[in-house]
């Protein structure tokens, strides 16, 4: 099989995603058969829930507030039109006609039946998808920059590395039962769109003075109840050493990581308690002493994988499209869309389009099966049949000709997918919260909806500029609230839903955990408080400053003070 095997896809849709080889396909098929048998035994009463739980979690199946939930892996967020279509078909046949895209570049179904899950997994396997390692104390789905391979600021496409790591970590016997789950993210660009510093291990591709490409390695980041920004453990790891170096880190974590308390079992706690220098010393000692040969990094294998991610056959085009310029002038709504949701592309005449899954008042990250099909069609007509899921819970079309943008926009608009708010106030990351999640202490989706309705006016949003609001329904921080410029955390206080607000979080290379604004507020008060914060920023900002820049310049205390004074007038914070 090759990367561009046309028998597997439509002739007009060359695919630039990784293809399973026979081994992969057989492995996934075997896992489905195994799970089918486990489900059968569970339903027949031969397995208790305690015996069955680890098996279902190994296949991404949770039990939630109203139903089961299935988490499907979308490795490094890349998928083909055919896979997107299959996700839509599964939503229709086995779920309620929609899916929820998450900050870990996965898709969650909220209503599958236990009895149907083996069939769902089989339907996924047919299009080279699965739910393996989307749960459990293993190395989870490796995530990557959603602009991988197309961003102009890129040193190298991070996906071959991510795929390489996926193959290394999948069913790795030593790392299938770690003290806790383990998350790795990779970025290959100058600007970090993969939030590498809030992962257990973050990898940034770099070029050294000799012009060789290698990795900057960060370790010990993570959100949850104790958020930490990762520390740099090594400035440069040569590609040939990558697996061995990661093995060394994992071994040190496995040996010294705490197991006495599940909340302290993450590598971030080890790094925090021992200090990065001690951890580095241990890792370097392990790395120096180990038999690296067994971590058979094989450059040929890396090249084989990388070949799957070669750029699609772009046409030679002028850098700027005259057609696009004219359409922007003629159709202001389209012009706004281009200004906000379209990003520059490596290849002349092309563009990267962010399709927002955050319509005003909508549920962040949800897409109906009809919308998934529109996106699949759009990617085939306008983007070589390739799509991405971003950790901001949006869908990316990575290779659209500038000449085609207007036609694409019309298609998206008709499907309710053309909201021009990427990166703006209403492009909110929100976890499912108490509307679905059994761990939640408060709702988060209605808060996102209320804020996005309050700021419904898109021209006002553009005036406000880039501002990331992120919401979680409990301290596990699935909604990344710690790294939101404005973060919102739902808690329970005296039997009521209560929301804590933080400011100044940042998920990029300049990562920062947000600072608390004050005591919690009620759900009704949240939009008012956010509006006060935004108004204060608008009054204080200097020319060209983003929210986070103003916050950094004038300091947290000023925001706190103003809100306190506002509170005396009834804002309640």
């Amino acid at each position: 099989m090759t990367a561009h095997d046309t028998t597997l896809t439509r002739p007009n849709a060359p695919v630039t995603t990784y293809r399973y080889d026979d081994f992969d396909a057989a492995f996934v098929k075997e896992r489905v058969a195994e799970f089918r048998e486990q489900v059968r035994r569970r339903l027949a009463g031969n397995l208790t829930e305690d015996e069955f739980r680890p098996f279902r979690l190994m296949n991404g199946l949770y039990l939630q507030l109203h139903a089961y939930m299935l988490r499907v892996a979308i490795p490094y967020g890349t998928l083909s039109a055919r896979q997107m279509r299959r996700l839509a078909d599964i939503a229709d046949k086995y779920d309620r006609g929609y899916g929820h895209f998450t900050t870990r570049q996965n898709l969650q179904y909220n209503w599958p039946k236990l009895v149907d899950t083996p069939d769902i997994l089989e339907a996924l396997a047919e299009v080279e998808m699965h739910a393996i390692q989307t749960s459990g104390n293993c190395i989870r789905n490796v995530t990557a920059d959603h602009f991988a391979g197309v961003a102009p600021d890129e040193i190298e496409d991070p996906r071959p590395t991510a795929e390489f790591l996926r193959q290394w970590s999948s069913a790795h016997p030593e790392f299938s039962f770690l003290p806790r789950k383990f998350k790795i993210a990779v970025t290959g660009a100058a600007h970090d769109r993969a939030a590498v510093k809030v992962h257990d291990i973050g990898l940034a591709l770099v070029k050294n003075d000799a012009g060789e490409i290698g990795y900057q390695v960060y370790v010990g980041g993570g959100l949850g109840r104790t958020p930490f920004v990762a520390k740099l453990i090594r400035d440069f790891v040569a590609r040939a050493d990558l697996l061995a170096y990661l093995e060394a880190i994992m071994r040190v974590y496995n040996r010294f990581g705490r197991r006495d308390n599940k909340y302290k079992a993450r590598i971030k706690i080890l790094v925090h308690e021992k200090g990065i220098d001690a951890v580095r010393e241990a890792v370097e000692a392990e790395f120096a002493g180990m038999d690296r040969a067994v971590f058979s990094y094989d450059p040929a294998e890396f090249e084989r994988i990388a070949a799957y991610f070669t750029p699609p056959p772009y046409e030679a085009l002028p850098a700027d499209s005259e057609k696009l310029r004219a359409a922007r002038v003629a159709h202001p709504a389209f012009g706004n869309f281009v200004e906000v949701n379209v990003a520059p592309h490596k290849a002349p005449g092309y563009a990267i389009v962010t399709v927002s899954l955050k319509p005003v008042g909508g549920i962040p990250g949800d897409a109906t099966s009809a919308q998934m099909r529109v996106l699949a069609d759009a990617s085939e007509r306008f983007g070589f049949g390739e799509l991405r899921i971003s950790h901001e819970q949006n869908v990316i079309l990575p290779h659209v000709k500038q000449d085609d943008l207007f036609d694409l926009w019309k298609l998206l608009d008709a499907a309710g997918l053309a909201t021009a708010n990427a990166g703006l106030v209403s492009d909110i990351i929100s976890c499912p919260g108490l509307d679905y999640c059994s761990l939640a202490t408060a709702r988060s989706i209605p808060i996102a909806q209320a804020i996005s309705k309050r700021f419904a006016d898109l021209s006002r949003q553009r005036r406000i500029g880039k501002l990331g609001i992120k919401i979680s329904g409990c301290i596990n921080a699935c909604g990344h609230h710690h790294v939101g410029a404005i973060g919102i955390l739902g808690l329970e206080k005296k039997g009521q839903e209560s929301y804590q607000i933080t400011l100044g979080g940042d998920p990029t290379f300049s990562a920062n955990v947000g600072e608390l604004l004050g005591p919690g507020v009620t759900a009704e008060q949240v939009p008012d408080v956010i509006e006060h914060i935004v108004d204060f920023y608008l009054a204080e900002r200097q020319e060209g400053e983003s929210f986070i820049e103003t916050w950094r310049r004038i300091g947290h205390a000023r925001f706190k003070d103003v809100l306190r004074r506002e509170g005396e007038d009834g804002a309640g914070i």
Partner: protein
Amino acid sequence: MAAFKHPQILLASSLADGEVLFLGAAGWERDHAKARVARDAGEASALEAFGKAEIAANRVVDVYLADVEIGADGVPTPLHYREKMRIKGPSVRLDLGKQASGGA
């Protein structure tokens, strides 16, 4: 056991499809209005014991008691917002969950 302060009902999730169930007079019900209400600690432990047996029989999972108040119509409504949500379905999608079929 904690002191008995409020009437209670027994909740569970169906093993086969994950739907929220309530223990009623004659077995598991999908509508909380049909839930059997425990009015003292003795009745509550009887519900719990039944729940444990049902777990052992692999019909349900995640069984627990929830405090309720009894409305004028005799229908028990959970006191905590978490279970208030569970008897209906997601508050953001009224077309999904029990509320969609008029069960709540």
